[in-house]
């Protein structure tokens, strides 16, 4: 009986030791695997610029947790533009995407892909397809865009489902000919849904206008930036005190003329040209007054 006790205790200690060892072995082995997958998952969070998510897709980091890769959006797309990424593609395995240059989104009014999604990875709050933000079209290549060259291609503008809102043509002087206009396709992020029709329609070998993820395509001013004219309009008047009128203190009998300097002469105007009396508008250059040069 005396010998039994220590033997039992040592057996229990050995069992405990074995249990701890086994657990440590598993935790370390599986932990190693987990770290590998975790780092891979971190890399897979970066959606390549050419892959566009279906309408209503949550921000990419949320989308990758919400999308269960069932493919119902793929099935319910009447134009078969969506596909699920296979493991060899640079998009997170099994998630839906489309490539605008191959097949752009047709912007169905019913948005069947969003309705099909069982998890809300495609947000069911999106009920008006014109509010979709799949990406943002950017005219990336101004050197090769035909309209920038002065030609009237206009395809991206004409093909845009939100024509005259998402893409407008802005006139500029064609400096090359000196007498023609350039019609510059200009994307307005407020209205662009990122459907990719413009990218698909661009007649160049490689599209000059492309749909990019919004966070790549859009700049953002500092949070403290204010546009003076916007603030002025909001306030209904100038927010800063008007400039103090500059006063010249000229020697007696002298006047000042721009470009000429001080000129002796009696009839010096009380206010030198180029400045205005308080309360009056400053004189604009003659060219802008509509007068003949």
């Amino acid at each position, binding site marked *: 009986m005396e010998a039994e006790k220590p033997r039992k205790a040592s057996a229990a200690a050995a069992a405990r030791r074995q249990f701890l060892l*086994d657990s440590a072995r*598993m*935790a370390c*082995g*599986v*932990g190693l*695997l*987990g770290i590998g*997958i*975790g780092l*891979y*998952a*971190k890399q*897979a*969070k970066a959606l390549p610029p050419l892959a566009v998510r279906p309408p209503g897709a949550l921000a990419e*980091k*949320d989308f*990758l*947790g*919400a*999308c*269960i*890769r*069932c*493919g*119902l959006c*793929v*099935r*319910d797309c009447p134009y078969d533009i969506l*596909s*699920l*990424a*296979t*493991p*060899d*593609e640079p998009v*997170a*395995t*099994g998630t839906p995407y489309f490539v605008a240059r191959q097949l752009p989104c047709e912007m169905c009014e019913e948005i069947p892909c969003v309705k*099909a*999604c*069982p*998890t*809300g*990875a495609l947000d*069911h709050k999106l009920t008006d397809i014109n509010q979709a933000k799949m990406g943002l079209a950017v005219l990336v290549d101004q050197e090769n865009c035909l309209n920038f060259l002065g030609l009237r291609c206009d395809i991206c503008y004409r093909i845009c489902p939100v024509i005259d809102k998402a893409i407008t043509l802005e006139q500029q002087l064609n400096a090359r000919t000196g007498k023609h206009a350039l019609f510059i396709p200009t994307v307005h992020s407020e209205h662009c849904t990122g459907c990719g029709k413009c990218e698909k329609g661009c007649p160049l070998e490689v599209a000059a206008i492309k749909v990019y993820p919004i966070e790549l395509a859009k700049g953002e001013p500092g949070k403290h930036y204010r546009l003076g004219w916007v603030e002025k309009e909001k306030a209904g008047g100038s927010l800063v005190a008007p400039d103090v009128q500059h006063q010249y203190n000229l020697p007696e009998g002298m006047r000042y003329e721009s470009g000429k300097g001080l000129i002796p002469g009696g009839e010096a105007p009380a206010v030198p040209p180029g400045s205005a009396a308080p309360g009056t508008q400053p004189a604009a250059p003659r060219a802008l007054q509509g007068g003949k040069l």
Partner: protein
Amino acid sequence: MSTERIGAEAVAARGWLGAHKWLLARRASQLGILTLFLLGPLAGVWIVKGNLTFSYTLDVLPLTDPYILLQTLLTRHLPEAKAFVGAAIVLAFYLLVGGRVFCSWVCPVNMVTDAAAWLRRRLGIKGGAHVSRGARYWILAMTLVLAAATGTLAWELVNPVSMFHRGLIFGLGAAWAVILAVFLFDVFVMKDGWCGHLCPVGAFYSLVGKVSLVRTAAVQRAACNDCMDCFAVCPEPQVIRPALKGVDAAGPVIADANCTNCGRCIDVCSKDVFVFGTRFGNKADKVSSPAQKMAAACK
């Protein structure tokens, strides 16, 4: 163990069909489910849409993989109600028929690993790497921790189970290489390696199976002639012994959650020891102890 092929005695006793009926039923189930999914994309007959992570049948019946739903919840995303309804239906079904019925009757990877196990037996490959069968629970825990830590379904980037089923329906891409790797791993590196040791999907469903109703039971265990065919063919042979041999006065019902209810033990047993039954009525006294059985056999 006899040098004959496993189940040879059963084939002699019941004919080839009789000795393979559950195997055939399982293949019919696995291929039938796959066919239902493929009818849409291949023939335009849309009975079932989606894949095993979520499917929609006849536009009324949602079915969700509860394991992937759990991962999604851990990323702190709240899915639509439809996903929860689907998961509840699936859970209820597997609570009824056995958790790992998913593995043996539904999962397409099972056909790959069954083929690997068959080839391994035919080539007489023995031994290989050893990892505890509990490893799958560690991996299961790891996948859940990953979902919570990364906020994404990290495991689904590499999960061979969903990758294979999705691939068969939506396009495989390089997933074939992953499946080939699983096959070769099972043939050369570890017996029943993927499904029996590592797969967290199976581990998840085995937790459901802890309380599920339908069980395989060795009700005629007194008739066992120790041919060992059931142990040789079973992908989880550790589950058989307590029920068959009455270890620690265990009843004849295979209570282990990792029994996949594949029915191969029923097929290969020439003595009709095993049947499908329920977890109830698991009385040890129904059958004789091995010692009594030995005495009976000597008569």
